[in-house]
C-alpha cells in the first residue's frame, strides 16, 4: 500500500471508530430507562473512554487470514480475555437478579447485559469484522430497549444509533476497498459521511412508509397517533381514554387504545379543579368497563335557572364552574358529579350520575355553567368516616375471572390498615411504588387478564391500568370504588388565566365511597407521569427537572451508591477532558496549518493550498519532498515548470534570509500558481493518483 493510501486508510479507520462510538453510545442511551442509573452511567462512561482510546488505532487484520497475515493463528489477546470475563461475570450477576415471568426484571437484566456486552466489545474490538459485529450488538441493544422500554423518547437515540450503524457500515466497506485497491483516488471520510446524509434521509422516509404499510402486529394504533407530536411528548398523554367520545361512550376496553391528539376540548378558569370527570364506570368484566344502564335515563329539566335531574335531591355541597367548549363533547364535563347545567343542549343522566347531551353537544366556543357535587374532606375526616355504606353491590363487585392472587395481594396490602382511608392509601402507595407508568406499555394478549398482567407480569401500564387495578384491589377487600374518566391537569401556559384541556389530557382515576362523605377522588397513577400533561416551554422545563430528580432518586443511598456516582461522574469528567484535549489539539493543528500573520505571501498561499489539498487527501505526504510534490501537482491545472518555480520561490522566501528574498514579480507569480492550484483543488479538477508520485 502506498503511503498516501495508508494515510487514507488510517483516517478512514478513525472515522469508522468515531461513527461506531456514536452508534454505541446512542444504543446505551436507548436502554437507559431500563438499567439502574449508576450502573448505566458507569458503563456509558467506560464505553466512551474505551472507544475514545481506540479512535486513533488502525484496524488489525482478521485472525483467520481473510484479509490479513495472521493466517492459521488464533490469537487471544489480553483484552479479549478481559472482555469475555466481563461478559461472563455480568451475565452471571444479571441471571441471579432475574425473576422469570417478571417483565421488569427481564428488561433490567437484558439491559444490564447489553451494557456490559457493549463495553466489553469496545474493549476487545480490533478488527473490522469485530466492529461490524459491534453494529449488530448495537441493534440488539436497540431491540432490548424497544421491547422493554419502548417509549417515544426512544426515537432520538434509535435514529442516531441506526444512522451511526449505517455510517459505520459505509466506512467499514470503504476501508476494505482502500486497503485492497491497487490505487486510490479518495476524498476525506467527512465527505463520505456527508454523502450518507441524503441516503439516510431517504432511509428514514422509506422506513416510515414501510412502517405504515406493515401489518400492525403490536395492537397499538400508533400509526395514526404518530402524527400528533405534542401528544407524544406528554407522559400523561393517555391513549387509554379514547378521546371525548370514549369518555361518554359507556365502555372502556383495556385491550384497546384510542388515538388522541393535541386538539383542545374544554377551556376553564385556571383556578378551577384540575380533574374534570365525564363518565363513571361501575361494571368490570375482567377486560372492559361499562357504564351502568340500569334504571334508564333521567331527563334534566329547568330548575332555578339550571337544568337539573328531575326529582333528584339537591346536593348539600356543590360548586359552579364555567366552561367553554373548544371541541366536540357529548358528556357534561364537571369537576365532580354534575347536578346542574346551564347552557345549550338537552341533558340526560343515568342513575350513576353520568350526564350526557341528547344529540350533538354544544357547538364550539359555546359556554356552559355546571354545578357539581363536592365530596372532599380532610384526611382525618376521611379516616374517621363512619356510617352506612353504599348499599349497591355493584361498587364492590369483582369479575369472576379475576385471578386469585389479585385478591391475595389486596388482602396483604390492606392487612395493616385500620380504616378505609389507610387501605386506599396503602393500595395507592403500592401501585405508585411498584408499577411503572408507561404510555406505550405492551397490551396484554387476547385472553390474558389485563389486571393480573399489569400487577404481576408486565408491571407497566398507563392510567387505565393503574385505576382499574386500584379499583379491583379495593373492591377485593370490600371497599366500594369505581373508575372515573375525564380530563386532568390541562394546559395552563397557553393562555394566561385559563386551563385548557386537550384530548391528550384524557385520564382515568378512582372514586372511593366514604360513609357520610360520599365519593372521593383518588388517583393511583404516579403523579410524575400524570402531572405534566401540558405542553409548552414551562412543562418541558418541568419535565426535564422531573427527569433529573427521578434520576437522582435512582442513585442508591449509602457508601456504595455514592462511590459509584462519584466514579461515574469522574469517568464522565475524564471523557469530557479527553474530548476537550482532542479539540484543543485539533484547533492548534488547524492554527498551524492556517499560518501566522507574519508569514510571507508565498507561504500563506502555499498553506492555503495545503489546506485545500488536505481536504481531498492530496496534501504533501510526510516523506515527500518539495520537488516531488511539485512534480505531482504539475500538469493538472498548472504546468510542472510553473509549480517548480513557485516551490523554489517558497523555499527562497522561507529560508533565503533578508538579502535573498524573491522579487515581487516572482512572489506574485508564485502566489498566482498556488491560488490556481487551490481553485483547481476546490473545483475537483481531475486528480491523477497512482501508486507513487508521478514523474
Amino acid at each position, binding site marked *: 500500500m502506498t503511503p498516501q493510501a495508508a494515510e487514507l486508510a488510517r483516517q478512514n479507520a478513525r472515522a469508522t471508530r468515531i461513527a461506531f462510538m456514536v452508534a454505541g453510545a446512542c444504543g446505551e442511551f436507548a436502554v437507559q430507562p431500563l438499567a439502574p442509573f449508576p450502573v448505566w452511567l458507569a458503563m456509558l462512561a467506560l464505553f466512551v473512554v474505551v472507544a475514545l482510546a481506540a479512535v486513533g488505532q488502525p484496524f488489525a487484520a482478521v485472525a483467520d487470514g481473510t484479509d490479513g497475515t495472521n493466517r492459521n493463528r488464533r490469537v487471544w489477546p489480553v483484552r479479549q480475555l478481559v472482555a469475555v470475563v466481563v461478559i461472563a461475570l455480568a451475565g452471571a450477576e444479571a441471571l441471579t437478579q432475574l425473576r422469570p415471568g417478571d417483565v421488569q426484571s427481564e428488561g433490567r437484566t437484558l439491559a444490564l447485559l447489553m451494557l456490559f456486552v457493549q463495553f466489553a466489545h469496545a474493549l476487545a474490538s480490533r478488527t473490522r469484522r469485530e466492529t461490524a459485529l459491534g453494529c449488530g450488538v448495537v441493534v440488539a441493544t*436497540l431491540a432490548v430497549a424497544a421491547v422493554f422500554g419502548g417509549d417515544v423518547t426512544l426515537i432520538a437515540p434509535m435514529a442516531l444509533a441506526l444512522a451511526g450503524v449505517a455510517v459505520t457500515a459505509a466506512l467499514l466497506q470503504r476501508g476494505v476497498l482502500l486497503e485492497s485497491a491497487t490505487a*486510490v483516488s479518495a476524498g476525506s471520510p467527512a465527505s463520505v459521511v456527508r454523502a450518507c446524509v441524503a441516503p439516510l434521509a*431517504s432511509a428514514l422516509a422509506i422506513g416510515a412508509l414501510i412502517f405504515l404499510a406493515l401489518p400492525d402486529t403490536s395492537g397499538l394504533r400508533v400509526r395514526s397517533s404518530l402524527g400528533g407530536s405534542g401528544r407524544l411528548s406528554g407522559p400523561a398523554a393517555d391513549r387509554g381514554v379514547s378521546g371525548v367520545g370514549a369518555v361518554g361512550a359507556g365502555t372502556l376496553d383495556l385491550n384497546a387504545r384510542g388515538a388522541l391528539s393535541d386538539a383542545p376540548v374544554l377551556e376553564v378558569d385556571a383556578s378551577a379543579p384540575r380533574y374534570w370527570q365525564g363518565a363513571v364506570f361501575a361494571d368490570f368484566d375482567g377486560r372492559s368497563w361499562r357504564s351502568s344502564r340500569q334504571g334508564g335515563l333521567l331527563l334534566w329539566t329547568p330548575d332555578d335557572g339550571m337544568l337539573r335531574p328531575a326529582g333528584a335531591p339537591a346536593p348539600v355541597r356543590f360548586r359552579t364552574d364555567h366552561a367553554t367548549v373548544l371541541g366536540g363533547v357529548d358528556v357534561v364535563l364537571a369537576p365532580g358529579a354534575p347536578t346542574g347545567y346551564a347552557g345549550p343542549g338537552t341533558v340526560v343522566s343515568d342513575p350513576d350520575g353520568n350526564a350526557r347531551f341528547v344529540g350533538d353537544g354544544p357547538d364550539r366556543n359555546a359556554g356552559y355553567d355546571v354545578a357539581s357535587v363536592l365530596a372532599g374532606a380532610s384526611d382525618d375526616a376521611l379516616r374517621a368516616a363512619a356510617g352506612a355504606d353504599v348499599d349497591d353491590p355493584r361498587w364492590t363487585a369483582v369479575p369472576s375471572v379475576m385471578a386469585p392472587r389479585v385478591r391475595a395481594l389486596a388482602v396483604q396490602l390492606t392487612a395493616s390498615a385500620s380504616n378505609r382511608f389507610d387501605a386506599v392509601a396503602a393500595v395507592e402507595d403500592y401501585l405508585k411504588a411498584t408499577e411503572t407508568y408507561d404510555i406505550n406499555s405492551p397490551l396484554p394478549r387476547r385472553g390474558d387478564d389485563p389486571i393480573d398482567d399489569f400487577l404481576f407480569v408486565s408491571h407497566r401500564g398507563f392510567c387505565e391500568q393503574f385505576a382499574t387495578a386500584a379499583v379491583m384491589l379495593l373492591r377485593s377487600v370490600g371497599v366500594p370504588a369505581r373508575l372515573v374518566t375525564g380530563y386532568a391537569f390541562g394546559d395552563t401556559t397557553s393562555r394566561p388565566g385559563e386551563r385548557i384541556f386537550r384530548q391528550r389530557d384524557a385520564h382515568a382515576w378512582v372514586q372511593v365511597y366514604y360513609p357520610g362523605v360520599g365519593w372521593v377522588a383518588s388517583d393511583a397513577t404516579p403523579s410524575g407521569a400524570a402531572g405534566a400533561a401540558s405542553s409548552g416551554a414551562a412543562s418541558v422545563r418541568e419535565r426535564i427537572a422531573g427527569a433529573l430528580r427521578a434520576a437522582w432518586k435512582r442513585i442508591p443511598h449509602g457508601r456504595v451508591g455514592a462511590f459509584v456516582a462519584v466514579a461515574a461522574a469522574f469517568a464522565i469528567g475524564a471523557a469530557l477532558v479527553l474530548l476537550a484535549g482532542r479539540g484543543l489539539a485539533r484547533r492548534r493543528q488547524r492554527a498551524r496549518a492556517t499560518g501566522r500573520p507574519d508569514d510571507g505571501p508565498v507561504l500563506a498561499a502555499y498553506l492555503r493550498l495545503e489546506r485545500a489539498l488536505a481536504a481531498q487527501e492530496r496534501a504533501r505526504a510526510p516523506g515527500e519532498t518539495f520537488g516531488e510534490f511539485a512534480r505531482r501537482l504539475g500538469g493538472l491545472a498548472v504546468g510542472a515548470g510553473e509549480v517548480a518555480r513557485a516551490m523554489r520561490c517558497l523555499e527562497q522566501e522561507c529560508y533565503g534570509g533578508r538579502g535573498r528574498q524573491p522579487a515581487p514579480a516572482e512572489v506574485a507569480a508564485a502566489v498566482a500558481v498556488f491560488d490556481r492550484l487551490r481553485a483547481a483543488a476546490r473545483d475537483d479538477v481531475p486528480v491523477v493518483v497512482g501508486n507513487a508520485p508521478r514523474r
Partner: protein
Amino acid sequence: MRRRLAGFRAGRSLQPVLIAAAALVALATLTHSVWLQVVACGLLGLVASSALSLGFGTGCEVTLSHPNDLVVATAAEVCFTVRNPGSRRSRPLLLSYQLVASRPLAPTVTVYLDSVAPGGQVEARATLTPLARGEATCARWSVTQLGAFGLFSVKPVRTLERRVAVAPQPATPVALRAPGGAREGAGPVRSGLDVRGVREWRPGDPARRVHWRATARTGELRVLERGEPSHPALGVLFAGRAGDPRFETVLARTAATVALALEDGAECHAWLEQPGAGCFGRLTPSSSVTPFVRVEAAELPSDKGISHLLDHVGAGGLLLLAIADDVPQAWSEQVRAVAASSGLDVVDMREFP
C-alpha cells in the same frame, strides 16, 4: 431496466441486516412492541435507500487504456478515465482490470474512486505487474458502483477481445560458441569478441563491423574480424509445462539468448509440440517472443519435428534445449546423438545457473 439490473449484487452486509429486520418484526409480533417494528423498519429503510441510491443518474462513462505487451515482473500502467456526465456526484466506484488466461498471469488491478463531481473527469492510473509468462486471450474490466452503506452494488463487466502477451522475465543471455568449440563458462554476453584482426570490407559485412579508426587511417573501408563467426544458426526445442519455476527460468534465459542472437543477425527456428499438433516457425526480431509466450504444455518433440528443425538449422548450427527438469535424460541424449549426426551442437539451457 433489464440492462441496469444486470450486475446488481447484494453486499455482504445485506444478509445480516435483513435477518435482523426479520427477527425484529417477528419479535414485535410476539411482544406487541411497536418500537421493535420501528427499528426493523429503520433497517429496511436503509436497505431500500441503498438500493435506490444506485438508481438515479449516478452512472459514469469509463474508458480504459492498457498495454498489449507486458513483461513478467516489469510494471506497466493501466489508466481508467472516468467521466461523470450526470448532474449529481457519482457513487463510489471500484474499477478493476484483469487478464483472462488459462492461469493467472497478473494480479487484478483495482482502483477505488470515492466519487466524481458532476461533469467532472478523473484519470485513475494503476500499476500492473505481471507475475507469470503467458498469453491472455482477453482483458476483462469492470466498474463496480457501490450503493449507500455498502448493501448493494452494480457491477457491469466488459471484455476486451484483444490478446495480451506477457513475455518472460528479462534474463541474462547465455554465451554461445561456435559448433565444435569448447563451451567454457558463461563468458561475455556477446559471442565472438576475440579479435583476430582488421581486414578489408567485403560485401555482406554489416556496417557496424566497420573499424572506423583503421578506415580513417588507411582511407579504405576496413572491418574488424572476430575470432569466431558472429552467430551460428539456432534451433530451439521446447518441452515442459508452464508454471514450473525451473522451466520458466530456462525459458526466460533461452528467450534472452535467442533475442540477442537475432539481434546479432543469427537465423533462428523453433519447434513447439503442443497437444494436438507440432508447430514450426522461423523467428524474427519482431516475433522472437511469440513462442516463448505461447508455451503452455509443450510435449516432447516428435522425431519428425526434430528432424524438420535440424534440416532448417543445418550443419554447424546450435540446437537449444529449453526443457524442463522432468524431461528424461535419455531423450536429451538421443537428441544430442541425432544432432551430432547432423553436425549440430546441442546446448541444454538447464545447465546454466
